[in-house]
C-alpha cells in the first residue's frame, strides 16, 4: 500500500530535532534533500499519525574494516578490498523541520523511533510547507534540492522587517528586484532608496518593453544619475527654508563643538524665520553680520550652493507614496551627505504620514547599501529615523527591507530587529559572524554552508517563511540595473568595433582610390 520511496532506516540515537539513518546507496540521496518519517504526536489530546519533514544536513560514509585510519597501510587496505570486506556504509544525518497541523508548522515533541523507514518527501508535502494562500504568498524561487517545488514567502512576515545579506555579486539587488515585483503585484506601496541607480530600470521588462506604469523614478534636481532613463524621472526637491538648524549643521559638517558658528547660524535663521529663503539668502544675511562665527559659517554654508537638492518647494510625500506603486529614489551621483539627507527627509516624511494616518496604506521601504545609512559606529542623519522604524515601525505599518553586502558594517541593533533574513553567498568571516549574531534562527550548519552557495541561491529564515529554506531565486521579469558587466562579452565587442573600424577605413580607401582613378589628370 505504501508506494513512497524508502531511502533508508533510522538508526542509532534520535531526538525530536535530529536523527541518523542508514542510506540505501542505490537511491543516493544528497545533502539538503528533503525526507519524511512517520511519527505519532499528541494533538488536542489525541494521538495522531503525522508526517515529519526533515532535511539531510550531512552525509558520511564509513567502513568498519577500513578503520581506524591511523592503523591502515596500503597493503592492509588492498587486502581488505580484495577480500571484499570493505563494506562501506552510508549514514545521513537529518534535521527535523516539523510537521503541518492546521496550516501551522509544529515541532515534534517525541523522538523519532529507530527502525522507522525514511522516505523521500513528496512534492505535495513540500508545497504545503513552502506555499501560502494567493494574496499572501510572494513567489521567490524554487527549492535548491528540488527545483520542481516553488517557494513562496509570506507578505505578513515583512511586518517584522527583512534583511538581505550577501556579498557583492551574489544577487542581492536581483533578489530585491524579485521582491519588489511581487510586492507591487500584491498591491504594496514600495519606496526604494537606491544609492547606485540599480533599480531605475524596474519599469522595463527584462525582455524589453514596459513592465509596469506603476513604477516611478525620482531624482533630485542635482542628481544626474548613473543611467539614462527611458522615461523622464520625476524631481524630488526640498525647500531649503524647511531645514532646521540641526539639519543644516549636519549637512554642512558643522560639528557640535563649534558653538560660535552654530550660535550665529541660529540667530540668522531666527531673523529669516517664516520666509522662503535660499542658501544664498542665508549667506547674504551672514555676510551682513560682523562676528567671527558668521564669518566662519559662510565657508560652511557655501557648500550648500553646489547642492541642487534645494528647490523652491518640498516635494509632497504623497506624490511619492501611492497605493500599488513603486517609487525608486535614485541617489546615484550624489555626494554622501546629500544622499544621506535626502534619505533622512524621505523616510522621516513616510514615518510622519503613517503616524498621522494621512497615508492609509502600509509602506515597504527598501534600503539598498543600508550600511551607508545605518553604519555600525559613525553617525548619519538618517540613522536615528531608520532605527526608530526598525524598533516600532511595524506598529505604524512601515516595514523595512535592508540590503547590504557588509553585515558587520551595519548597526547591529537594526540588523537584529530584522526578523527575517535572506542570506546569500558570504565568504568574509567577519560578515559571517555578524550574520550569526543577528539571527538565532540560523543553524551552525546553514552558516557553514554560506560560502558554498551559488550565485542566485539563498537561505531564507524568519517570519517570512514557515521553516528555514534554501532557495534558488526565480528569474526577474524586470530589467536589471546593478548587474555586473560581462567583461568577456564587452571585450569581444571592443575587438569587433576595432575590426569594423578597420574595415570601414579600408572600404573608404578603396572608394577613394576608385574615385581618383576615374579622373585622370587630377
Amino acid at each position, binding site marked *: 500500500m505504501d508506494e513512497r520511496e524508502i531511502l533508508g532506516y533510522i538508526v542509532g540515537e534520535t531526538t525530536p530535532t535530529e536523527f541518523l539513518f542508514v542510506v540505501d546507496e542505490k537511491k543516493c540521496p544528497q545533502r539538503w534533500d528533503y525526507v519524511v518519517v512517520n511519527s505519532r504526536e499528541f494533538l488536542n489530546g489525541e494521538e495522531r499519525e503525522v508526517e515529519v519533514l526533515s532535511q539531510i544536513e550531512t552525509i558520511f560514509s564509513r567502513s568498519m574494516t577500513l578503520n581506524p585510519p591511523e592503523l591502515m597501510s596500503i597493503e592492509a587496505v588492498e587486502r581488505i578490498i580484495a577480500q571484499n570486506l570493505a563494506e562501506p556504509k552510508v549514514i545521513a544525518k537529518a534535521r527535523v523541520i516539523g510537521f503541518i497541523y492546521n496550516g501551522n508548522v509544529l515541532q515534534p515533541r517525541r523522538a523519532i523511533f529507530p527502525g522507522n523507514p525514511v522516505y523521500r518527501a513528496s512534492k505535495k508535502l513540500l508545497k504545503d510547507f513552502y506555499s501560502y494562500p494567493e494574496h499572501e504568498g510572494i513567489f521567490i524561487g524554487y527549492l535548491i534540492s528540488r527545483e520542481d517545488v516553488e517557494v513562496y514567502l509570506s507578505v505578513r512576515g515583512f511586518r517584522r522587517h527583512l534583511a538581505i545579506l550577501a556579498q557583492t555579486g551574489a544577487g542581492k539587488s536581483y533578489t530585491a528586484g524579485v521582491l519588489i515585483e511581487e510586492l507591487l503585484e500584491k498591491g504594496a506601496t514600495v519606496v526604494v532608496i537606491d544609492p547606485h541607480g540599480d533599480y531605475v530600470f524596474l519599469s522595463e521588462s527584462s525582455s524589453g518593453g514596459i513592465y509596469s506604469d506603476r513604477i516611478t523614478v525620482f531624482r533630485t534636481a542635482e542628481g544626474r544619475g548613473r543611467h539614462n532613463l527611458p522615461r523622464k524621472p520625476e524631481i524630488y526637491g526640498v525647500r531649503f527654508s524647511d531645514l532646521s538648524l540641526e539639519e543644516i549643521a549636519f549637512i554642512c559638517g558643522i560639528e557640535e563643538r563649534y558653538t560660535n558658528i552654530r550660535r550665529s547660524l541660529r540667530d540668522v535663521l531666527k531673523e529669516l524665520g517664516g520666509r522662503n529663503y535660499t542658501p544664498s539668502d542665508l549667506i547674504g544675511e551672514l555676510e551682513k553680520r560682523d562676528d567671527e562665527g558668521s564669518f566662519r559659517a559662510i565657508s560652511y554654508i557655501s557648500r550648500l550652493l553646489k547642492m541642487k537638492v534645494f528647490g523652491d518647494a518640498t516635494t509632497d510625500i504623497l506624490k511619492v507614496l501611492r497605493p500599488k506603486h513603486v517609487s525608486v529614489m535614485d541617489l546615484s551621483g550624489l555626494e554622501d551627505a546629500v544622499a544621506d539627507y535626502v534619505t533622512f527627509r524621505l523616510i522621516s516624511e513616510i514615518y510622519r504620514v503613517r503616524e498621522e494616518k494621512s497615508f492609509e496604506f502600509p509602506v515597504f521601504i527598501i534600503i539598498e547599501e543600508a550600511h551607508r545609512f545605518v553604519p555600525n559606529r559613525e553617525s548619519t542623519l538618517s540613522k536615528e529615523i531608520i532605527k526608530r522604524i526598525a524598533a516600532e515601525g511595524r506598529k505604524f505599518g512601515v516595514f523595512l527591507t535592508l540590503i547590504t553586502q557588509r553585515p558587520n558594517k551595519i548597526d547591529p541593533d537594526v540588523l537584529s530587529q530584522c526578523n527575517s533574513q535572506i542570506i546569500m553567498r558570504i565568504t568574509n568571516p567577519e560578515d559571517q559572524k555578524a550574520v550569526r549574531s543577528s539571527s538565532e534562527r540560523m543553524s551552525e550548519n546553514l552558516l557553514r554552508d554560506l560560502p558554498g552557495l551559488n550565485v542566485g541561491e539563498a537561505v531564507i529564515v524568519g517570519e517570512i517563511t514557515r521553516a528555514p529554506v534554501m532557495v534558488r531565486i526565480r528569474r526577474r521579469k524586470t530589467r536589471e540595473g546593478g548587474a555586473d558587466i560581462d567583461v568577456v562579452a564587452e571585450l569581444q565587442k571592443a575587438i569587433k568595433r576595432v575590426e569594423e573600424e578597420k574595415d570601414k577605413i579600408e*572600404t*573608404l580607401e578603396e*572608394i*577613394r*582610390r*576608385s*574615385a*581618383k*582613378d*576615374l*579622373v*585622370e*589628370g*587630377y
Partner: protein
Amino acid sequence: MRIAHISDTHLGLRQYNLDERENDVYRAFEQAIDRVIEERVDVLIHSGDLFDSPTPPIKALYVFKNTMKRLNGKVRIYTVLGDHDRPKRRGMPPHKLFDLRVLGVGGLEWEEVDGILIAGISNLRGRMAELLKEELKKFDQISEKYRKSILIAHQAIDRFLPFEGDYELKEDDLPGSATYYAFGHIHSRQTVKFGRGLFAYSGSIEITRRDEIPSWMKDGKGFYIVDLEGDEPSVEKVNLEIRPQLEVELEDNRIGEILNQLNTRVEPILHITVRGGKLDRAQIYEKLKELLAGRVLEFRIRFEFEDVKKAFPELPRGQISIEELIRRYLQDEELSKLAVELFKSLSQEDIDSAKNIAQSYLEAVLGDDSEKSQA
C-alpha cells in the same frame, strides 16, 4: 574678398535637340561671365556641372575657352566636378584642357586665398557617399585656423529634396563652421542660414527642366556675388536674361486664347496643358501648330481628360492583375490596350516590338503630343 558663385552651367546641353537651346546655354554663360567681369570679383567659384557631360561637344569647349579669355587671368577660378561632367569611365575631364583648378577628386582638398580657406570636394554618389561624409568631417578641424572659410561641393541635401529621397547628405552631415557653403546640383537657387554661415545653391543658369519654371519666375536664374568682408557674408543675386519658358493651361474649346499670353520679347518655349472632355489630340495639335508658327521656339502639349481620375486605384486584396490595374487607372479602353501591350513587351525587354506597338498606335491617332518624348 568678393566672390562669384556660379553653378550648373551645363555647357553643351541641347534641350529638345534644338540648336537654339544649345546656344541659349552658351549665351547665358557668356552673359554671366560678362557680369562677373563687371562686378570685379577676386575669385570665381563654380560648384560643379560646368559641362553637361564629361565629353561635351567641341562647341561647348570652344565657347568656354573664348569666354575665359575675357577674364584675362585676373580672377582665380575654383571648381569641383559635378555628377554630369565627372568621367563615367576612366578618363580626363574636359576641365583639364583649360588647366582649371578642380578641387577634391577622391577627397577634400583646400587652398588658402588671402587668409581665407577655400575647400572643395568633387561629386560622390551612391556607395561613394560614405567617403563624402568622412571627408566632410575633416572640414571643421581644418577651418579652425582660418578666420573665414568656404566649402564647395556638388551634392543634394535632404532638406532641399524632401520628396525625392535621392540625396547623399543630411543636414547633420554638413560641417558647421564654414562661412559660406557654395553648393551645386539643385537647379532652383536658394540661400539659408546654416551654422555660423550661409548655405547657398546658386542654381542653374538656364531652365533645364519644366519643374524649374516656378522657381525661375520667382527668383530668376543666374549666380551670386558673395561679399565676405562683413561679420556675416552678404549675398547679391545676379539675374540673367534667358529665353522665357511658360506654363499655359487651356480649355479644349478655347485654344485661341493662347495668343493673349504671347507677350515676351524673345520667342518662348510653351508647356501647354489642354483640358477637356473628349479631346481630339491630332486636331488640337494641328491647330496649335498653326497658331504658334513663328511665335514660339517650341511647344509641348499635355492632355488632361476631365473624366480620368488622378488618384491611383486602391490595390485590391488577393491576386493582382496588372491589366486590371492599368484599366482602372486609365479608364480608357484604347489607352489601356496600348499600355498593357507595351508593358508586356517592355517587361521582357523586347524593345523592337514595343517600338512597333508605339508606332502603330501613333499612326492610328496621328501626331506627337507627348511631353514624354523629350525624356
